[in-house]
């Protein structure tokens, strides 16, 4: 799974409710990525959703997506068709990113220091390779486990479940 696009650089401690998605939309229980995409980073940069393009990659510092892991934040990012690469992501954010089908490299120490806003990137999420075409550098990180990547490749938990149910897989206590 390879994304080619521009880098949207963010610093440390980007929060779910505080930055990525205003809590208001969570409380409305919105769940359509195509609706939520228009509100991503709304309070930080109202033009973000207009300027971001599918294939672009958010490159963030430490603790991207800290705070209460409301699904709406990453469903919105999914709606924009963006990937995420971060120095680190808290467990809750990691979980909802996978649920939403957002390709991610969650533990890339110091990656945010190696890119600038607007750099052209080529990110191979499955192999953990971040290629900065603008700076002509390549970095290698730990990719999510293959099983997790299967869920992301399917488009998130719901499409993955559709496939799993079709295969007849289930876990039932006797």
């Amino acid at each position, binding site marked *: 799974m390879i994304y080619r696009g521009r880098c949207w650089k963010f610093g440390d401690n980007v929060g779910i409710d505080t930055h990525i998605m205003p*809590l208001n939309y969570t*409380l409305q*229980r919105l769940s359509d990525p195509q609706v939520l995409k228009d509100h991503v980073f709304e309070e930080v940069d109202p033009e973000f959703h207009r300027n971001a393009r599918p294939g672009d990659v958010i490159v963030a510092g430490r*603790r991207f997506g800290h*705070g209460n*892991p409301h699904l709406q934040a990453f469903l919105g990012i999914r709606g924009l068709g963006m990937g995420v690469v971060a120095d680190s992501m808290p467990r809750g954010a990691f*979980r909802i990113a996978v649920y939403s089908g957002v390709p991610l490299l969650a533990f890339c120490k110091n990656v945010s220091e190696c890119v600038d806003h607007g750099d052209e990137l080529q990110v191979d999420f499955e192999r953990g390779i971040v290629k900065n075409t603008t700076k002509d550098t390549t970095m290698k990180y730990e990719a999510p486990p293959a099983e997790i990547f299967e*869920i992301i490749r399917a488009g998130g*938990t719901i499409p993955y479940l559709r496939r799993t149910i079709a295969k007849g897989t289930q*876990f039932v206590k006797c």
Partner: protein
Amino acid sequence: MGQTITEKILSRVLGRDVSPGEFTYPIPDLTVIHDGYVVSMKKSLDELGVTQIKNSDRVMFVTDHEVVPVTQMGADRGTQIRAIAKAWDIKHFYDSGRGGIGHVAPVEDEFVKPGMLVEGYDTHVPNFGAIGALGIPILGEVTSVVAIGATWILVPETIRIDLKGALPEGVTVRDLGQYIMSNIDPEVANYTVFEFGGPAVRDISIDGRMTLCNVPLEIGTESIVFPTDEVTRAYYTSPIEHIAPDSDATYKARFEFDLSEVTPQISVPPTPETVVSVDKVTGKKIDYAFIGSCASGLMEDMRQAATILKGRKIHPDVRLFVAPATQRIFAQMVKEGIVEIFLDADCLMLPAGCGACPGGKIGRVSAGEVALCTIPRNDSGRLGSNDAEIYLGSALTVAASAVQGKISDCRELYKEATQ
């Protein structure tokens, strides 16, 4: 090789020994889903063509976020949830007026027991760690649990936290929780389980353990768990399984905290882990106060607040809302005269449940207000307006500050009240 509590519980559920980092699909003993997600989950299942859920006897619905709907949308959602519960034959259903917060009431009812694996659509489901159960917040993945019976869990590493010494007068486990959170690097805590131990644990009640299984979660901890001991055994009316780590268990890191060094702690905006000693913010005027939530809406918190509020009025410029975590706590407060103390002090009693905490469903703050609360989080919008400042502290701190109209060191009033 020795195992931590987390490894033991997951190994038991999976029927084989597991190690940190393993990708697993454990079948939880219980999955708790709150009223904010039942309808969305049903919609997803409809799209998937799932008409009958798996292991329905292990699924619990809890209406705790919007106990008393104040909008038509909320009221209609309640009706939909009741219909879904009937259609799916959900036997464990705490509707409005039943039980209380979904990760407190099932412990009171002795339904959740030591050694259980409980998953849930609620970030604070680790409260169950207080009695030696492992609570893992899985959020939207509850859809997977009801559709196919399980979801993925990467077996987490464990961090051991030993507690020693005794809390000084006027300092509470809530302060300890905030203190711990501010003294552990979130990068180290991320995706681990905190396992408490050490000599001071025996002095901490189940209420206090719930607070400690809740407050430090905000730095990215997967879950928090206590071993069982005489305190746990005394809490249950029937014999329980003993849960403890092996003496040669492997930990990612170890921390030790001396309780005697803790002072009243305040989380300042914009995150709960931004914690300072109370003296750094003393004197900050407050408009709004709230005592409640799964972190600190327990009987012990109510008793603490009552100590300060007895015979006093809160400051005329402050509204103080109180929401007991459960119906039973509310009833006990009535019995002990605590409700009368709060009413005499000019507090507003809210129904048992989450109260104002989830986005100000009831008792909102308005723009420009300063709030001091016992809730777990202080993100903007948590109590309503995005433009309110939210500070967090113990029930003692909130009560003392509400009386004085400003953030205060509760130790003075506490000393006066207990002399």
